[in-house]
């Protein structure tokens, strides 16, 4: 056999357009903000709407991130994901109602402590529910998409009815903690304190998730599993255990999002999760199934667009996100940041 010749590959610099292409989806967010600035006549109004849109987007991201990872990792379409949002909201709000001495006080520290306790309770409850949901409802229908849709929808209905049995059929109104009521004024724009908090929490969660996915071994396994689960197993990793962990974490995040969404709307119902699922599906699809970064960008686009359009043309707000879905899929049919699947 001949001797191998010297193999010295060169790394050529890509053209500017090719280098920018992967970042284009991220550039859509400032582009949409600038478009909003151009169309909305008053800068303070634009600023208020932008913060509101970002807050809404961050909360949708928190609720949707688990669902996109679950789909990416095991091809599981969980139509019951909304139930974790509802359960999280009910558990969290119940804790907040018990902590009225904290929520009623004007102290920000006490308000944040009450919300933290509510969030912990919601995360624990929805994490445990997620574990049970995976074992009882999802596990028997791996690889069968139609059955997954039917069975997870059934699971959603059952748990929603359980919520009605436990908490009653009526809506529950939940006032925000005293310290989080009202707004701060900046450059003439009023920005609700709670929305600023939601933006901060959502951004922190995104950065934490990104850190885990990019810098830890478990994150590497999850990212590799989304792409080629069979090969991850051939390297010795038990993907099933990773999937259960992601499912539980995704359910807990949805529960956290449920608490945040409940406090944002100041009212919770057993069907709130099901209602928000439409936006979550849009976000997961336009982001690219399985992509956390895509989900984050999609959620912010949905939040911003909905707020801008609701201000400019209220009747069009309902269809604006469907328009966004159509436009993004015409541009990138696999979503903004498509995940390369090797399954």
């Amino acid at each position, binding site marked *: *056999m*001949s*001797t*191998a*010749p010297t*193999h*010295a*590959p060169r*790394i050529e610099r890509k053209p500017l357009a090719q280098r920018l292409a992967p970042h284009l989806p991220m550039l859509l967010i400032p582009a949409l903000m600038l478009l909003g600035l151009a169309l909305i006549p008053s800068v303070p109004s634009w600023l208020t709407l932008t913060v509101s849109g970002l807050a809404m987007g961050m909360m949708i991201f928190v609720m949707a991130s688990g669902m996109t990872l679950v789909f990416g990792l095991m091809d599981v379409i969980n139509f019951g994901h909304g139930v974790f949002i509802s359960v999280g909201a009910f558990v969290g709000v119940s804790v907040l109602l018990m902590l009225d001495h904290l929520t009623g006080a004007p102290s920000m520290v006490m308000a944040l402590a009450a919300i933290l306790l509510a969030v912990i309770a919601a995360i624990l409850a929805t994490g445990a529910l997620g574990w049970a949901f995976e074992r009882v409802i999802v596990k028997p229908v791996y690889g069968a998409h139609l059955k997954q849709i039917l069975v997870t929808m059934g699971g959603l209905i059952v748990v929603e009815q359980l919520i009605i049995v436990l908490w009653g059929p009526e809506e529950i109104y939940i006032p925000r903690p005293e310290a989080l009521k009202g707004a701060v004024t900046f450059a003439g724009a009023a920005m609700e304190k709670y929305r600023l908090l939601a933006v901060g929490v959502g951004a922190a969660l995104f950065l934490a998730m990104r850190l885990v996915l990019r810098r830890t*071994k478990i994150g*590497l*396994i999850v*990212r*590799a599993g989304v*792409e*080629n689960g*069979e*090969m*991850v*197993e*051939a*390297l*010795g*990793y*038990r*993907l099933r255990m990773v999937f259960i962990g992601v499912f539980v974490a995704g359910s807990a995040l949805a529960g956290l999002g449920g608490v945040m969404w409940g406090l944002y709307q100041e009212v919770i119902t057993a069907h709130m999760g099901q209602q928000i699922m439409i936006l979550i599906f849009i976000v997961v699809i336009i982001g690219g199934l399985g992509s956390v970064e895509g989900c984050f960008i999609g959620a912010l686009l949905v939040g911003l667009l909905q707020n801008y359009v609701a201000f400019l043309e209220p009747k069009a707000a309902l269809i604006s996100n469907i328009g966004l879905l159509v436009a993004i899929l015409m541009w990138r049919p696999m979503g903004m940041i498509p*995940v*390369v699947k*090797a399954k």
Partner: protein
Amino acid sequence: MSDPILSLEGVYTDIAQYHILQGVDFTVPRGAVTMLLGRNGVGKTTTLRTIMGHWRARAGSITFDGIDITRLPTPAIARMGVGYVPETMGIFADLTVEENMILAAASGRLDPARLERIFAAFPPLKTFWKGQAGTLSGGQKQMLSIARAMAEDRRLYLIDEPTKGLAPAIVATMAGALKALKNEGASILMVEQNFAVARALGDFAVVMDDGRVIWSGTMAELVGDGLLQERLMGLSLAAGH
């Protein structure tokens, strides 16, 4: 034949309604390279995937180093020390070369000395260490796929068509790296269509046709017996048309 590290006895594997393996029997000797040969579609890849646990054997048994692994899940088989290089290479395109290698060291961190040996065998991997694996050329992806299997000590390597579709220069690089692995005393079961590579690397050969083993023996026997080659390969070529 020396002490086998892997034995297959009467292995049957079905994929949906297709009966792909129909009673496969052979052994893989320890510390030697066994070539699994045969025309396309005779069940060579299915044999490797069945050993790896990706597809379940309907009947028969697979014994690895004295332990029955027929019903074990894939991660358990991998953790027993079986390194697998699939036909599709199975690299993680969205991850960097470095991240692919970190994942390959399932039991711990990458050993720097081992990594240097890998870089010596496959220099482009060092060049593109921080680059996205999906941007590598076909040959470089194959190098990464084999390097991943070499990231830790393995008791057995299952390598599926490592030279498929590669330019002659890259085939030579690949063969050189596999020769070095062989010289370290590795036990290897390799599917290979390039008979020149198979002849250069193989100590033993197993020839399959229609989901069964039709001949097994030493590579020297196969190479030295023109009539035998003609019978086996001629039979295969005839069946392929």
